[in-house]
C-alpha cells in the first residue's frame, strides 16, 4: 500500500469518526481536523491530518497493527480526533486488526464523552 493509498484510507476512517460524532451530537462538525496522536513516537501531540498520516505510515507492507480513532472534542473552528497507534510489532496488512475487513489497522472507538466547546457556535 502506497502512502497515498494509506492516506486515503486514513481520511476515510477519520470521516467515519466524524460522522459517528455528528450523529451522536446531532450537529454538523467542522471539517477542520486536528489529530491528537498517541503512539508512533508521540505522546498526545497535536498535528494536522497529513502530518499524522506521515507519522503513521511505516511502509508499503508494514503497518501499525491497530490504530484507534475517536472524536473527543469539537468546536466551531475544529474537530479534534484521538488517534492512537498500538505498540504491537508492526505487521503486514493482513496482520492488522482489519475488522471490518478492509479497514486495516484502523479501529473506530466510541468516546464516553465528546467535549463540546462553545456549543452555541456549532452549526446545526
Amino acid at each position: 500500500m502506497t502512502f497515498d493509498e494509506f492516506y486515503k484510507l486514513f481520511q476515510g476512517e477519520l470521516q467515519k469518526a466524524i460522522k459517528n460524532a455528528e450523529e451522536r451530537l446531532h450537529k454538523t462538525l467542522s471539517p477542520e481536523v486536528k489529530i491528537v496522536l498517541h503512539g508512533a513516537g508521540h505522546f498526545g501531540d497535536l498535528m494536522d491530518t497529513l502530518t499524522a498520516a506521515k507519522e503513521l505510515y511505516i511502509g508499503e507492507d508494514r503497518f501499525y497493527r491497530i490504530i484507534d480513532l475517536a472524536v473527543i472534542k469539537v468546536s466551531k473552528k475544529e474537530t479534534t480526533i484521538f488517534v492512537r497507534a498500538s505498540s504491537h510489532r508492526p505487521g503486514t496488512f493482513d496482520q492488522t486488526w482489519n475488522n471490518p475487513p478492509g479497514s486495516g489497522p484502523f479501529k473506530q472507538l466510541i468516546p464516553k464523552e465528546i467535549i463540546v466547546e462553545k456549543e452555541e457556535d456549532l452549526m446545526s
Partner: protein
Amino acid sequence: MSHSGASDNPYRYTGQQFDALTGLYSLRARYYDPALGRFLSRDPAEPLLTLPRALNRYVYVADNPLNAADPSGRQAFTEYSLITEEDEESAADFYVIGAISLGLLPEGDFALFAAGLPLGMRIALLVVTLASVAGPAIAPEAYLSPQSQTPSTSPIATPTPSDMNRVTLYRAIGPAELSEVLTTGTYGYSPSGGGKYFAYTYEGAVRFAKSPFNANVEMTITSIDIPSEFLSRGYTFNDVGGAGWSIHFSDIVLPELYHVMSPIRILGSP
C-alpha cells in the same frame, strides 16, 4: 567457597574450574575470588528487582551457596532456568526447580503442582516466592489463587468500606508485558509512546485476549485497583469490537498511575 588443603584437581566446588596460578575459579562468564568471597566483575545478567540480595551483582548465588550454584557466573536463577528463546516452557519449569533448590519453594507435591501450571503462572510462582523473601512488589495472593479472584462484571465494582472510591480495571497482556509486570511490578511503557488501555470489565479484557488478533499469543489477564478520581486522567472509550468500555492512559500519565494503583493481580489465562 574458599578451599583449603592440597589438590591437583582443577575442578572443585560445584565442578567449576580452579586456576591455581591466579587463585580464581573460572565460572565462564566471570571469575570468582574465593579469598574475597565475591566475583571480580558484575553479574552480566540483569538482577531480579524483587530480590534485593541479587542487586549486589558481585555476590555468589545471592549469598546462598548451600542451596544454589552458579556455574555460568550469571545469576543462580538464570542458570537454573537454562533459558533459551526456543524453550521458554521448560525454562519456566527450571525457574520453579531453581526456586525449590534455593529453598524458596517446598518440594514434593507442590513442585508437581507448579510444573502443571501454565507458563505465566509458573513464572509468577517464582516471583511470588521471591517476593516472600524480598517483600512483595506485587500482590502475592494474586499469583497462587487465580480461581479465587472474583472478576467484576460491572464497569465500576460495588465498593466496600475498605475499597471505597476504588475502581478495578483489567488488562490483557502478552508474554513480553507479563515479563515486565513480573520484573518491575508495572506494565512498563509502550515503546512507541502509545500509552495503555484498561478494560472496565474482566469480560472485556477476556474478549480482547480471545480476539482473532491475539490468536497466536499467550495472553494473561491482570487487574489493578485505582482511585476512582484517577479515571479523569484518561479517556474512556467503548471498543465495541474489542474490549468494550475501556480507558486509555497516555504514557505521560502512566508514572502517576503506577504510583496510585494497587499491586498488579495476575488472574491467569483468559
